[in-house]
């Protein structure tokens, strides 16, 4: 008797991967109608998708809510830029080093933070993140270049590149063996990594390792009395998610080779929490959905200004246009976070399981009738 997929609620790996890869690689085509099909935004979808998938391995499976994952994003970016400065403009060493460094940081922070659980764990990770952020701004200025942010310069050594060719005029751009990493090429590079990242996460979700992480979320006391040494399992999940964040940070630097401390700020950590919850914690696709929606709406709402609002409400009588524009103006542009807050509240109140729960409900309604 071999295990029954339906009973174990497992996904068909190869079918899922096929559909997922198709979906990701054809994004430039199917996002066209909603005006989201330009490289900058697509790159963001893929990069933050990787970030959220990794975060979901920790938060979604083990239930440990980290408020400091932007640290690893920042570490990844700084590492990548340093790799561009010192080693080579090739992106491969940059992203490999980003992941390694982020993993190392995750080990250090996780080692301390995972001694506590629940709210204490969250606060510890938040404290470490703010500490890293402030260090990056102040004493670590020689490494991070403080407020200005770390940038490429023509004087950088780039020792590997110099072995093969002379430095050109102007700032070099990031490449994958000669392939420039901007525009659609940059997106496809990120997309391939997103697909690999998703594959690993899918394997983890279906594995005994993933099951033990879920069981830790469900009842950690029982896990200890069942013979599981839970700490190293949590540690592994923490480091894996840290490395995902490092990869995302590295890719941010690949598509735009500079790194600033603001990438490590708590708002950035909070954003990935929002994305994961909005889409559906602990589900495979939920975090990606959250990323898509937040990044897309951010893109739309933050570009709206009072001029566009005036045009939009032009059909109203003049007397109230100003009033309406002034009011709605609070929710767009710089104030787009207000909209995000409202959206988040509505989702959490009506669909605590995120959008994926909404889909599940709709699906159940249809299957019940059938």
């Amino acid at each position, binding site marked *: 008797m071999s295990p029954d997929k339906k009973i*174990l609620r497992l996904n068909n790996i190869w079918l899922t991967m096929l559909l997922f890869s198709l979906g990701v690689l054809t994004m430039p085509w199917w996002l066209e109608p909603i005006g989201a099909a330009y490289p900058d935004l697509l790159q963001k979808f893929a990069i933050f998708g990787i970030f959220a998938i990794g975060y979901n391995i920790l938060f979604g499976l083990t239930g440990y809510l980290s408020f400091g994952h932007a640290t690893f994003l920042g570490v990844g970016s700084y590492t990548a830029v340093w790799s561009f400065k010192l080693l080579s403009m090739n992106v491969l060493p940059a992203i490999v080093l980003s992941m390694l460094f982020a993993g190392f940081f995750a080990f250090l922070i996780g080692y301390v933070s995972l001694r506590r659980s629940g709210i204490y764990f969250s606060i510890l990770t938040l404290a470490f993140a703010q500490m890293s952020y402030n260090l990056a701004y102040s004493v670590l200025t020689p490494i991070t270049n403080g407020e200005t942010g770390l940038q490429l310069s023509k004087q950088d050594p780039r020792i590997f590149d110099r072995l093969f060719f002379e430095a050109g005029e102007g700032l070099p751009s990031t490449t994958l063996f000669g392939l420039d990493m901007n525009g659609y090429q940059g997106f496809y590079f990120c997309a391939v990594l997103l697909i690999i990242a998703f594959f690993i996460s899918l394997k983890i979700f279906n*594995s005994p390792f993933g099951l033990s992480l879920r069981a830790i979320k469900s009842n950690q006391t029982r896990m200890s009395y069942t013979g599981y040494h839970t700490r*190293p399992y949590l540690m592994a999940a923490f480091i894996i998610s840290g490395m995902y964040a490092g990869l995302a940070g590295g890719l941010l630097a690949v598509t735009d080779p500079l790194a600033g401390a603001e990438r490590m700020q708590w708002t950035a950590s909070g954003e990935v929490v929002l994305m994961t919850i909005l889409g559906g914690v602990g589900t495979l696709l939920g975090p990606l959905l959250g990323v898509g929606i937040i990044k897309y709406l951010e893109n739309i709402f933050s570009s709206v200004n009072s001029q566009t609002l005036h045009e939009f409400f032009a059909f109203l009588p003049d007397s109230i246009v100003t009033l309406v524009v002034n009011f709605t103006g609070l929710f767009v542009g710089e104030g787009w976070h207000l909209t995000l807050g409202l959206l988040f509240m509505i989702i959490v109140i009506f669909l605590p399981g995120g959008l994926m729960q909404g889909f599940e409900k709709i699906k159940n309604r249809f299957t019940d009738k059938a």
Partner: protein
Amino acid sequence: MENSFFQIQGVNKTFGGLIALDNVNLSVEQGTVHAIIGPNGAGKSTLLNCCIGKLKPDTGTVTFDGRNVIGKTAYEINQIGIARVFQTPEIFPELSLIKNVMIPAFAKRDGQFKINWFKSLIDEDAIYEEAVKILDDFGLKEQMRHHAGNMSRGDKRRLELAMSLIQHPKLLLLDEPTAGMARHDTNKTIETLKKIKKSGMTKIIIEHDMHVVFSLADKISVLAQGAIIAEGTPDEIKGNPVVQEAYLGGTEDA
């Protein structure tokens, strides 16, 4: 007495001024069912908690199969072969029954630590098969894909028992396995426990229900106010006047 399978020697435990355990000695022979009975607050659960690393006794030793148990953590104690069923069912409510039972089997195999992330649950034929079989034994096979959290209390307790048994522990500690169960469920549980009694697994049972105790136990220890006041076979205990005084209230005709 020196080489008993499971031995508690001179265990004391106080909480503030309260003496919870007062120089408790207990030895359990391999393959027997040993019941610990006693009125509420006698220290029965405290005694078990001292055996599984939840509490540390003030003095005394607990040895299992020649190894010291005191100071070991909960998971280490499980790994040397002691499993425990709790008074309030400790299960994984968000997971399906089948997964609830598979987890302890994985724990036995790679509880120390092993990231076998590349292997899918679908490849775990042996563990899956055993889990299905054990759920079948407990009459839970029909519901195996449902969430464990939605079951009745009796079913949850039987699930927890199944979770312990899949590990084939050398010693099973049962904390009131039938508490809060309907008579029908109690009988089902007794039947199951009798079945596993035949397998020769050593068990320590804490129980209120005398019906359960007298139908299962080979030996009974009576705990009152933290001290063992009597020990013997079920028949000896039934006839013991001290026990009747302290526990049975002297009213029950044995």
